Structures are given as structure tokens and as C-alpha cells.
């Protein structure tokens, strides 16, 4: 095996993923059900979150208090996150009850769990930067919680600047990366078949 890192990266990426697997135009018949819609619905809400979040970032965290357009952008961001979590939880229930980790899909399941955790942390930092009484209440309560588990020295919920940077820079990038990883794993392994159709478990792409 070549020691060149470019060769190793090429073999691990471009040569391991066929274009027809990454961007398929057909799916197995059992995918024709509404329960398979919620993963992509979550991604659609995530795209809206990204777009409205960039808009809010350009104008600053206090913009929405004084501008009706800012209020509209903030409401779009709020309802996108409401839908994001609703769709993600329904997606989670669907995948849990169909035991979607079957057929060597445990990494796909775990990447979804990690995405869920990262989403909760991202949403929490969003609550902290509303610059209103709500964020004041949440941050003062949360700092006691963080101090009680000994992480107050690393993350101060009362530090709005830290929460803003985490919310608009680090966490969306992290979450976006996890989501891309999750989708690539789904494309690689294919959609999990129904429980009574285990014959197609590993070869259903």
C-alpha cells in the first residue's frame, strides 16, 4: 500500500463511494412510505436554519428587538428549529421502531445519535443569545448546573460572547459535518429494509 496520504485519502473516499450510490435515482419499494420522509425533512429545516441564521448573524443578536424584518427573520429561525426537532424526533422514532442499526448500520445509528446531541447543544447556545429575559433566566439557571458538574471553568453560560461564537461558528460547522457524515453512511449502506424482510438486509442499495 502506498504511503502517500493523497493515495490513501483517494482510496478511502473517491474509490470507495460510487457516484450512483452517493446520488441514487431509485430506492427499494419499501421506501415508498411517509415514515421515510422525516430524515430529508429534517435536512430541509436545517437548510432553513442555516439561511436564517446567516441572515441574523449579519445583523447581530439584538437586531430582532427593534426591526420588524429582524423579528420576521428571528421567527423564521425559531420555527425552523421547532420543525427541525419535530422532524428529527419523528425520524428517530421511525428508525428506532424499525431497528435501523441492523445490517451493519450501527455507525449510521450512532452518527444520528451524535447529531441529535450536537443539535441539543447548538439549540441551547441559541437560547443563550436571544438577548432577552428568557436568555437571562436560562443562562443564570444553567450556570449553576454547569458549575455543579465542574465544567463552569470551561463554559460560562453567562458569557454571551462565548455563546454567540459557539452558536454561529463552531457548533453549526460541527453539526453540518456530522449530518454530512450521517448521509454518506446512509448512502453507503442503503436504507434499512423492514424487519420482516431481513433477506435483503445487506444488499438493498
Amino acid at each position: 500500500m502506498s504511503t502517500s496520504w493523497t493515495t490513501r485519502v483517494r482510496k478511502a473516499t473517491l474509490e470507495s463511494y460510487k457516484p450512483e450510490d452517493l446520488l441514487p435515482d431509485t430506492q427499494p419499494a419499501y421506501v415508498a412510505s411517509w415514515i421515510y420522509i422525516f430524515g430529508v425533512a429534517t435536512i430541509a429545516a436545517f437548510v432553513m436554519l442555516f439561511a436564517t441564521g446567516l441572515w441574523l448573524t449579519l445583523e447581530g443578536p439584538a437586531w430582532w428587538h427593534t426591526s420588524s424584518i429582524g423579528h420576521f427573520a428571528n421567527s423564521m429561525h425559531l420555527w425552523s428549529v421547532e420543525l427541525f426537532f419535530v422532524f428529527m424526533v419523528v425520524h428517530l422514532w421511525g428508525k428506532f421502531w424499525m431497528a435501523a442499526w441492523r445490517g451493519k448500520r450501527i455507525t449510521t445509528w450512532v452518527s444520528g445519535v451524535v447529531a441529535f446531541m450536537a443539535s441539543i447543544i447548538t439549540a441551547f447556545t441559541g437560547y443563550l443569545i436571544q438577548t432577552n429575559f428568557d436568555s437571562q433566566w436560562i443562562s443564570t439557571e444553567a450556570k449553576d448546573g454547569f458549575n455543579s458538574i465542574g465544567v463552569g471553568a470551561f463554559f460560562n453560560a453567562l458569557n454571551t460572547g462565548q455563546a454567540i461564537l459557539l452558536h454561529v461558528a463552531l457548533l453549526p460547522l460541527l453539526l453540518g459535518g456530522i449530518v454530512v457524515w450521517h448521509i454518506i453512511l446512509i448512502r453507503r449502506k442503503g436504507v434499512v429494509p423492514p424487519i420482516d424482510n431481513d433477506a435483503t438486509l445487506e444488499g438493498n442499495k
Partner: protein
Amino acid sequence: MYLAAIINLNHPAHYYSVGPFSISAGNAVIILVMIAIFTLALFLPFPHGKADK
């Protein structure tokens, strides 16, 4: 603003409490809506479009 005039949100949240269990009306509604969406997704027929060639 206009919707808020119809549904007045300018008051403390209403909570349902049974023994040690307590949940706000808003959270209860969200959970019930999610259960309804999940149930509908399982049983509503999925439309079938024309197959691509």
C-alpha cells in the same frame, strides 16, 4: 403580532401536573403533534409517481 393578538401568549405558561409529573401546555401540545404525525406517517398511503426511465 396579529397571531399573538388571537392567541395571547403574554402570560406565564400553563402547566398540567399529576403527582410528581409536570408538563407545560406548550410542550404537551408539541409531543401530541409529534405522535399524531408519526401515526399518520405510518398509515397514510404514499403517492406513487410515474417511474423514471
